[in-house]
């Protein structure tokens, strides 16, 4: 074919097709017989629980060198085990090795009895009592708080409302400006009749949340990654890592109806942190009240929380001690990529030690 971009040898093409089918046939047997991979399961003890919520205290190989404990608040969507996914890719484990004293809030799986939980319940209720539990264990007036994604938004609101209980604040992939032009989730959420949605559906099913996330990159996430899977089916380690990530993606909690309603309306639709009109539990959330040291880490290739959504934090805080760290990776890679293991926990530790 003249001026054609194709230079395909029919015999090589047939080899390619038959090789794919051969790998697929043998690999599917392996996939069918595979066991569910475990998460890293770094040793931990339960130090506080309430309703579905648990606070875990992690045990490292050595005693913590930091004087102030670090409490991690994850998002309500997905499970918290992204922070402790597998032994060689665990943010929690790496923070322990650095000398941090790490606590983690596991929000649990809401059911129908949690339908009426509000953001006030989550932020001024659950999160506040978790902070108090850690403060009391260490007999400290204030602790360090690390919020991730939606948990970062909660942490910002919490620190603004309860400034005396937080010493240093770290946010990871946390949006402040929910209406940047490249935010696809926000773009879609703005025309959603969320009142009718929650009134009708109640708690938001995890499957529906996953459906929306997969819709952000439908071909890549629904097909291309499985085409890529065929090439690693015969590698037990790579297959196990793939299945572990699949487990995490689809092992998601439902969302408490009223909290979901409020989150969509106040953040995605009204962009409350930017407008300064956000109220949680009847109290105005003013990010200008955050005079604490703040470390804001975001991912440059994040399709869920675009970098600009996070960078906007700098314009709203009241602190003079603001540090920004741009990570070369995506929303999930910031926890589990090889680069993340080398860069993120040491950066957090160093920043905290300079302020301990």
């Amino acid at each position: 074919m003249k001026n054609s971009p194709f230079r395909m040898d029919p015999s090589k093409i047939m080899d390619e097709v038959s090789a794919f089918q051969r790998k697929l046939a043998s690999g599917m047997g392996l996939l069918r017989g595979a066991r569910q991979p475990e998460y890293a399961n770094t040793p931990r003890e339960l130090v506080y629980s309430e309703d579905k919520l648990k606070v875990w205290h992690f045990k490292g190989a050595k005693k913590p060198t930091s004087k102030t404990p670090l409490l991690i608040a994850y998002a309500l969507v997905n499970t918290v085990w992204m922070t402790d996914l597998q032994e060689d890719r665990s943010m929690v484990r790496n923070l322990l090795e650095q000398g941090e004293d790490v606590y983690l809030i596991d929000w649990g799986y809401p059911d129908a009895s949690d339908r009426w939980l509000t953001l006030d319940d989550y932020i001024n209720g659950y999160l506040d009592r978790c902070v108090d539990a850690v403060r009391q264990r260490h007999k400290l007036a204030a602790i360090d708080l690390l919020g991730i994604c939606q948990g970062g938004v909660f942490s910002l609101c919490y620190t603004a409302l309860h400034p005396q209980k937080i010493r240093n604040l770290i946010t990871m992939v946390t949006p402040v400006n929910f209406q940047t032009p490249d935010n696809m989730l926000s773009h879609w959420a703005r025309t959603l009749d969320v009142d009718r949605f929650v009134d009708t559906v109640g708690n938001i099913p995890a499957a529906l949340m996953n459906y929306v996330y997969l819709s952000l990159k439908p071909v890549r996430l629904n097909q291309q990654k499985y085409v890529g899977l065929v090439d690693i089916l015969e590698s037990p380690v790579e297959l196990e890592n793939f299945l572990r990530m699949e487990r995490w993606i689809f092992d998601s909690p439902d969302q408490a109806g009223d909290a979901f309603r409020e989150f969509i309306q106040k953040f995605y639709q009204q962009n409350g942190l930017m407008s300064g009109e956000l109220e949680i539990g009847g109290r105005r959330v003013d990010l200008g009240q955050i005079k604490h040291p703040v470390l804001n880490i975001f991912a440059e290739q994040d399709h869920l929380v675009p970098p600009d959504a996070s960078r906007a934090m700098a314009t709203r805080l009241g602190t003079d001690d603001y540090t920004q760290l741009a990570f070369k990776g995506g929303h999930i890679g910031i926890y589990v990529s090889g680069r993340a293991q080398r860069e993120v926990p040491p950066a957090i530790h160093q920043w905290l030690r300079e302020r301990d």
Partner: protein
Amino acid sequence: MSDENPRVTKQADDFFQNGAAKDYQDIVRKSWEAFAAYMQPPFGTPSAEEARRSSSTSTKSAPVNLTLDHALAGLKSYADWLQSAAASVSAPQNDWQQQIQQLFAGASQPFSHGFAGADNAGAKTFVDQWRAWLNSHQKADASAANAKPQAPGASGFGFGNDPHAQQQALADAIAKHLEAAQRYQALMQRSNAQAIEKMQARLSKLTAPGQQIESLKVLYDLWVDCAEEAYAEIALSEEFREAYGEMVNTQIRVRQLQQEQTEYLCQQLGIPTRSDVSSLGERLHALRREMRQGKTAPPADHADELAALRRDVALLKEQLLASRSPKSAAKKAPTTKAAVAKKVSRLAVKKSVAKPSSRKITKAAAKKSVVSPPRAKRVAPVKPRKRS
């Protein structure tokens, strides 16, 4: 029975006598299954409950099987495309741009099962299921009233018109959803067309030797890049935002009306409804919040009582200090002691009278209430410094 809607009563009788209950259950089940399937990702994902169950399973597990399902669904259309692409590229053709159209347009595209389930087939299934629901209700209603069902859009009126109005609202909602789904689908088709244009533009720059595409996998990866790029452009447009919102909102409206119909029927049959349970949950949650607030903030009446007691203690301390001062000791001590004794005695009497059972004051109780000196003695040794 005169206060009951005769048509509903008849409907309820038919419901049980003609074995319609089973049909009704079947319709509910099928409708729900269709809705759940529609709302879920194309390949299905585990619910939180499934995930929890699976996480306690150490053997072959649900998520692995689900991954298998996901992978198979994604791979099947890819494998089909691979076959047809192999045949296409092996045959000599003069127009490579036409060849791209054949490989990636319409049903032959590698992701032919649609963008995230919101394709025509999905919408059609959804609408068909709800029409079945609607028809079943119209038939039951028509049978009970011995009348032909009215066409959607026609207005109903008169006593017992509620079920008819509900059906009509549902028919209208389904029609609106179908329109919204078609608008959404048109955007998806546009996205696919733009992906092909992008691909043709990129391929046209790869005609030099050494740059040409030699493998189907490379061609597929290039198509994925173009498809995602075109989709992102459409998905971030104002037009898409309106269409997407309309599609979701109309779909939820259909479900809301179905719930209302279900609740209406359940109420007639004396079956507790979702709203009943939800209402109880809301009340319970409000009570829990009140209880928690009660734990953290002391009630105002206790605060007043505490303040009054503190004033009394302060007064007693002053009086005790005064009684110990050298100048006034000889002169004031007896008076102060007496005053303290009197005050404590008064408090004791007040306390005993406050008890309902002490209305009839026994001799012992009366004696106790007036035994002030020992109480005064108990108060007297307290050192103000320590108290403060």
